[in-house]
């Protein structure tokens, strides 16, 4: 095994709700794991177990209370994502890590093609080239030219999710955090997204993804992390995991996409 790209140790997060009389919630109570370059780590667990909090703490949308998350950057330096200055987080978000939320949070009144192209222009790529690449990426996900020039706020849930995925994969970063990337997709679109994710994986993108669909998980995950009440209760290859009952077993249609070693 190579050096991990991300090493998380004892990550803990407490939310103090001052407006509710100081009530405390503990979404993460000490989470540790390693992630290799090109590895796909699936995160599963009941609703409210801390899955999204884990992604948000790594992306710094949440402020963690304790622990560390050592990330190996493209330049070979190692930084603690939980503590590195905001300035560096802004740079890392632009160049090395991306977070794909369950629902598209695109700014209003911007055509889909520009929503995707902005990822590239933010990295200094010329507008014309960025638009071309964005259009290709959307077309791969079957967002046609009509939709590309419309505002994503007007799209269906599945279309929005594909715009979101296109944004994540138009230029795969070193680390991708995905919150339910296929939840709103039909079988065929789901298969396309999985193909793109595997392609990115092949190019070395490491991914942590919250998944509810056991079938998707079996196709793509290298390892699985089960979170319950802020703790890791299981962590290992798919074959060793005893899955909780509330996972969606799927319909079996995805099997045609082929298994994953």
């Amino acid at each position, binding site marked *: 095994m190579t050096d991990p790209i991300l090493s998380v140790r004892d990550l803990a997060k407490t939310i103090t*709700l*001052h*407006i509710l009389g100081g009530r405390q919630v503990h979404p993460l109570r000490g989470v540790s794991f390693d992630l290799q370059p090109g590895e796909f780590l699936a995160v599963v667990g009941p609703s409210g177990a801390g899955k999204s909090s884990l992604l948000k703490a790594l992306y710094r949308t*949440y*402020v963690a209370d304790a622990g560390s998350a050592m990330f190996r950057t493209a330049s070979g330096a190692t930084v603690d994502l939980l503590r590195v200055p*905001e300035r560096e987080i*802004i740079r890392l978000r632009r160049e090395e890590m991306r977070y794909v939320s369950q629902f598209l949070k695109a700014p209003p*009144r911007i055509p889909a093609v520009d929503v995707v192209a902005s990822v590239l222009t933010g*990295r*200094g790529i010329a507008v014309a080239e960025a638009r071309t690449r964005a259009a290709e990426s959307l077309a791969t996900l079957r967002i046609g030219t009509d939709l590309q020039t419309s505002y994503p706020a007007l799209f269906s849930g599945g279309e929005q999710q594909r715009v979101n995925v296109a944004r994540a994969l138009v230029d795969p970063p070193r680390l991708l955090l995905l919150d339910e990337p296929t939840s709103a997709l039909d079988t065929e679109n789901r298969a396309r997204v999985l193909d793109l994710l595997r392609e990115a994986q092949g190019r070395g993108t490491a991914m942590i993804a919250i998944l509810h669909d056991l079938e998707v998980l079996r196709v793509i995950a290298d390892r699985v992390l089960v979170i319950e009440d802020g703790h890791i209760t299981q962590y290992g290859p798919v074959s060793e995991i005893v899955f909780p009952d509330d996972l969606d077993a799927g319909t079996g249609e995805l099997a045609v996409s082929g298994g994953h070693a």
Partner: protein
Amino acid sequence: MVEPLEPLLRVRNLTKVYTSGNRRVLACEDVSFDVYPGEVLGIVGESGSGKSTVLQCLYQDVAPTSGQAFLASYHNGEHSIFEADRRERRELRAHQISMVYQNPRMGLNLMVTAGGNVAGRLLAADWRRVSDIRDKASDYLQRTEVPLDRMDDFPAFFSGGMQQRVQIAKALANGPELVLLDELTTGLDVSVQAGVLDLVRDIQHTTGMTAIIVSHDLGVIRLLTDRVLVMKDGHVVESGLTDQILEDPQHPYTQLLVNCVTA
């Protein structure tokens, strides 16, 4: 892309106390922050929290009581801009810093044509060729979607939204290093607000402008800023990445603010 790591602006312990008779009113106290090139910093807080005072001090409409502000291009960032003499202050306003006021009447001369307002700004920045000035002014008014046939009209007869767009054209035309925007959409109706916000966002994307945006509207902050300072009673109570402030606010006041969003 090589990122310049030096802040464009460093503000340290900025304090403004107004005295009225023998009463002291604290507008802001010990406000410190950095702004990096290409970054948009938001300042949020309720009215009276001191957020506009910070901008007024930086634009030197108001003299701070104490504190310093170092602009990288002013004496290599070694002297505070508050030490500038009258001539230097005029230079700073003409070339380096510009302001968009909440009330367009503050930033525009309403009895000079729209084109003349923008031209005046360029003249102050030492533009001399009339044809260059004319071209640049019409270019910026076009970008801000002020119809060219209104260029020779007086802004006094424009709608609030169009006045605001002329003010933005004027503030940006000479390519200032730092743009200060004070509640730029407050008082405009929603569809006009959207137009003004899209305009600022577009300019931000195409020019990489560095800006400080004061607003009590969290939607504006979410749309336009990278980082946020939260002010209450003249103090910065919390600062952070915009998504962090909105999704995981730490301070009781910020939690209240974020939960007060009406829609």
